[in-house]
């Protein structure tokens, strides 16, 4: 039924006109945001307004978790304590060796006049919620620009790489998980030293090692760690374990899939690594040019 107000009432533009105006505005926003990334300041302002609501909405879950923590039984605490002591004992030799190895490594690097690896500065953040968007895999953490969390930083848990900060708001940050479709992580095979790039495919627990030739030296069970050549992820962090290899001569590349090692979708706390490596300027670019920012797909 057409909604046509009698002409003698002043009612402003018709619904159809309003529909067109607001649809055009939405589409303009969509294009400006996804194609050109123009709207960062606008997003920041909107994020500050929405922030209190987000905190209120995530409060019940975190209160429930805290109450759950409070009622931990004595026996489970004892069991955990015993397990941790045992783990510490079993890790102790490795740690002692690590110190010696680090010293040796430093000396060798000095001998080779190689650049020293910079230790990343880690910051603990709590996962507020997984983004409620069926199209992408993201989590929202409770540290933002105010805590020096910036877009591009790597996010890890105790077992490996979880993802990358792709958008930082004043008190929150969005982390794109490595399983998000098209999210790339440069890796190195721990056994053979072969470098490659791992892509997310948009499913939980599946990663894709792409562009590896058919005869590439990759085996089931190989560990893939970050190679660090992108300057985003510090080198040597575990990313995935190769779980399936298909070598079909009909294709140029082998089909290699792996499982992420980190609990990508099941963490409550993660570490944000602020790691910055001085990358020499690529040849052909003059120093006068402004520094180009890293793309969001690291």
């Amino acid at each position, binding site marked *: *039924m*057409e*909604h046509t107000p009698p002409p003698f009432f002043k009612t402003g533009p018709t*619904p*159809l006109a*309003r*529909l067109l*105006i*607001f*649809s055009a*505005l*939405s*589409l*303009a*926003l*969509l294009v400006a*945001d*996804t194609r050109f990334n123009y*709207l960062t300041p*606008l*997003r920041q302002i*909107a*994020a500050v*307004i*929405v922030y209190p*609501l*987000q905190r*209120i*909405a*995530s409060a*019940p*879950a975190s209160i429930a978790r805290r109450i759950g923590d409070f009622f931990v039984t004595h026996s489970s605490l004892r069991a955990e304590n015993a397990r941790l002591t045992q783990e510490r004992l079993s890790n102790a030799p490795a740690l002692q060796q690590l110190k010696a190895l680090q010293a040796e490594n430093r000396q060798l690097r000095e001998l080779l006049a190689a650049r020293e690896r910079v230790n990343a500065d880690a910051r603990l953040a709590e996962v*507020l*919620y*997984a*983004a*409620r*968007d*069926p*199209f*992408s895999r*993201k989590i*929202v953490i409770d540290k933002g620009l105010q805590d020096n969390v910036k877009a591009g930083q790597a996010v890890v848990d105790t077992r490996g790489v979880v993802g990358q900060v792709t*958008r930082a708001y004043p008190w929150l940050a*969005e982390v794109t998980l490595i399983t998000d*479709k*098209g999210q790339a992580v440069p890796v190195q095979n721990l056994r053979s030293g072969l470098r490659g790039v791992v892509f997310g495919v*948009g499913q939980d627990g599946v990663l894709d090692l792409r562009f590896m030739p058919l005869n590439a030296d990759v085996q089931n069970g190989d560990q893939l760690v970050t190679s660090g050549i992108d300057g985003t992820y510090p080198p040597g962090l575990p990313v995935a374990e190769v779980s399936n290899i298909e070598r079909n001569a009909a294709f140029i590349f082998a089909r290699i899939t792996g499982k992420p090692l980190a609990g990508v979708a099941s963490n409550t706390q993660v570490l944000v690594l602020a790691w910055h490596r001085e990358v020499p300027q690529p040849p052909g670019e003059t120093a006068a040019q402004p520094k180009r920012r890293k793309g969001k797909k690291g």
Partner: protein
Amino acid sequence: MALRPPQPHEILLPVKAGFIAATLVVALLANLLPWSGVVLWIKPDFLAVTLLYWCIHQPRKLGFAAAWLLGLAMDIGDASLFGQHALAYTLLVYAGITLHRRVLMFSIKHQVLHVVPLLLLAQLATLVVRMAAGADFPGLLYFTASFTGAALWPLFVLVLKLPQQPRLDPEHPAI
């Protein structure tokens, strides 16, 4: 379909603008709760259903601008594309305002049948935007939210109409 004349007309109290705003904020909060897993797929878009309720029942009280701004808030909260929910809610409000006289002719049961396609329209707009931006089709389960939202319509009508019910106080016959 049995087209009943509107039931013995209840005379409702006028709705307060503050109440509309409060319900919309509560619906936004409900959407921002940390849903996850299967529930995330099944849960209705509370804000969409609430918006639809108000633009069907009070088409002159709820503007496009409010719906559009709430859509932007959802986009920030959901880490989705900026403008995606805004577009969906704009379409929803237009459809609601255009059809409000027709929908109100029907009983609650039959109103649900109108609500399903309207919510589907909003979801379809989101889907088109995301697929144009390069996402995969997330599967038919994605559309469940429209059906659960429509199934909750009678509950929404019941709750949102409560403060408008005239007080049935025999000693102080109001109005």
